[in-house]
């Protein structure tokens, strides 16, 4: 049984002088300004910031899907490529990116194949159950709702038991109700395994609800304007959102977000 296969210990992630500049027809665009960041092993960090601020680029840099202009990334002392080669990380993209010709089961099993891990029908079935897609294992993505596709994509991320989980708006493009449910249920899956998790979100409440730490980014180029530690007890239930501590944290994050906007000097035109 898959449970017998122990996942790798979660790694610490460090970024040293990490930056990314895109060179296009319109000249150079600095997406991520040189950053020094450390993400502790086993911690869940939310990356919050305005649209297009470079959060996704940062995630792709950490995964090694994008080459940095300067600096480097180390995941537990290894390069991202070395970690990807042994399937030590998994990325959940904004778009669920399921293969339309494969069933949910086939899409989840695909990750095992790509990770060069033995086919494990039982583990695949269990994860599909855990994300609440029982009875849909044989369905193709076209037959699923947006939220169900997102959950299938998350099952695909988890099935290889990665030590590092990088999620880019994992609950984007999902209706509010499903979103709240996912935000409550899914973190338990990776918390139980002690995975190092980085996730990008637009939702301040979601960030505070899920994360141990919230990093607030300025508009492009991405730069950290606030680093908030979320010391709320776990497991967190929905009613924790009503507590004063929770409200104080969300207000702090929101204030930092607005400050970032103000600093970027891009006020909305009056009328």
């Amino acid at each position, binding site marked *: 049984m898959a449970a017998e296969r122990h996942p790798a210990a979660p790694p610490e992630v460090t970024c040293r002088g990490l930056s990314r500049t895109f060179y296009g027809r319109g000249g150079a665009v600095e997406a991520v300004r040189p950053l020094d960041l450390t993400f502790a092993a086993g911690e869940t960090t939310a990356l919050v910031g305005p649209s297009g601020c470079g959060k996704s680029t940062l995630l*792709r840099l950490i*995964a090694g*899907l*994008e*080459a940095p202009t300067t600096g480097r990334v180390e995941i537990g002392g290894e390069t991202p*490529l070395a970690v*990807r*080669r042994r*399937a030590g*990380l*998994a*990325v959940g*993209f*904004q*778009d*669920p*990116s*399921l*293969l*339309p*010709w494969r069933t949910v089961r086939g899409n989840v099993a*695909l*990750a095992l*194949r*790509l*990770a060069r891990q033995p086919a494990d029908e039982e583990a695949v079935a269990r994860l599909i159950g855990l994300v609440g897609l029982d009875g849909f294992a044989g369905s*193709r*993505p*076209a037959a699923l709702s947006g939220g169900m596709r997102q959950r299938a994509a998350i099952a*695909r991320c988890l099935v*290889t038991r990665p030590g590092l989980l990088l999620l880019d708006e994992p609950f984007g493009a999902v209706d509010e109700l499903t979103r709240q449910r996912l935000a409550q249920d899914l973190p338990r899956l990776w918390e139980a395994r002690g995975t190092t998790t980085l996730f990008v979100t637009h939702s301040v409440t979601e960030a505070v609800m899920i994360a141990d730490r919230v990093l607030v980014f300025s508009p492009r180029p991405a730069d950290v304007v606030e680093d908030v530690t979320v010391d709320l007890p776990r497991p967190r239930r929905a009613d924790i959102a009503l507590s004063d501590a929770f409200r104080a944290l969300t207000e702090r994050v929101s204030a930092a977000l607005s400050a970032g906007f103000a600093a970027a000097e891009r006020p909305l035109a009056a009328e």
Partner: protein
Amino acid sequence: MIDATLARLTASGRLGSVNGILLVFAGWELSARALSGAFLLASPTEVLAYLAQNPGLMGRALAATLAEAAAGFVIGNLAAMALALIVILTPRLERTIAALALLVFCLPLVATGPILRVLFGPGVGPQVTLAALAVYYTTFVPLLVGLRAAPATWFDVIRSYGRGRWTELVQVRAAAALPYLVAGLQIAAPAAILGAMVGEFTGAERGLGVLTIRAMRGLDVPGTWSLATLAAGVSVAAYAGVGWIGRQLSSGPPPVILAAPVSPGGAVGPRRVAGGFAHLALIAVLVLALWTGLMDLFGLNPFFAKRPDDVWRFLVTAPQAAEHRATLFWALAETMAVTLPGYFAGLALGALIAAAIVLVPPIAAVAMPVAVALRSVPIVTTAPLIILLLGRGALGTITLVAVMIFFPTFVACLHGLRQAPGQVIDVFDSYASSRLQRLMLAQVPAMLPAFFAAARMAVPAAILAATVVEWLATGIGVGSLMALSASLSDYGMLWSAVAVVSLTACTLYAGVARLERAVLAVYASEQFA
């Protein structure tokens, strides 16, 4: 990493095309020198010398062909737009119009050419008509897809202002269809030149096609190669020119046209099958009525203009009907025996080479522009060359059919290989999977819809290529039979051949389209939904 590769590809695109074209010319020159004395292959330098020595002759012929092609281009495309408009404004007629359009597209040019020659007499009538016939379908299909390509919400915006179908058409559909129309017109430009040249093969006074026939009969190797080069060069230029104009008009990237011309949906199961048969019967009645009606309308001479009942008598009830059938179907079998291997070889090579080439991005950068350029070469007009090179046996015809099918398939597959949905390639990269794994698990399945679209459009092309070679060179098969019947004024056989060949082409086309729909339902569910 993919981004970096793509950036490199685009940056080297222009350089790649220059390199690729230089490579083609170098290979051509070298093989011509190696084969010198075999009287098969004229080198680029010989071609240039020939063109320089005969500027007046070539210039006049080129001007004549271009004028016919341009007239056919305009008429055919206007017809395509009119048909597409009718379909959009009266959706209920769609399946009927699409079926009739397909049938006309499947008419064998080899037979319609001589028939038109009798109808029009000397002059440019047949050339212009064949050019128009060669272009209208390849514009009609993408245009129809384009007119439907606008997202549903755009229509809601129009309706929320209380406007109707006409505003919808002008404000939304026309704008959404423009890139598709441009893509169709681009393919139509070289096709018009092909149609005009095939028309000239049927006995015109001037034009590149006339000189080609003359050069081939006179075993004039440099002449044959020069004419083919000139036709190819003009076609590539027309393709590039229309593409350039299109880019000035619309900013959108050229779309990949996947959807089958007839939208799916409607009843399913036995009801749909029954509906299908009823519809087929309706089309058949309509075709027979149009066939007879047009002949009556123009008061055509019954000796020459055979009606459906004449064809029936010729093939079924006449005393020598069995003999007629044997001749016709034997000739058709001969044609199919070379068409099908060429068709499958062209498809297989196109898909395999496209798939292999994406494993080596630098080669793709060189091959893509060359393939796009060569796709616009009207291969049929190079038939004499292939016969010169490979002889009059089956191999020559099979090769020509394969070459004719190869380029569009190859280009469609290369586009299709880039169609992997969303960030799927990123998913593969996040496990550092190999290029081969990415190809086999993501890119090849994503390519299937484009491949089947190419396979469908290749059916009439393959039959056209085979019949033209049979007519011009090999003297066997239904192509030769039609040419012979035309010259012997055996119009019973000619019209019967037209009916049988068109029906065969339509049936094969419909078969591939059916397969395509099944593939689309699984592999491109988002386009299908």
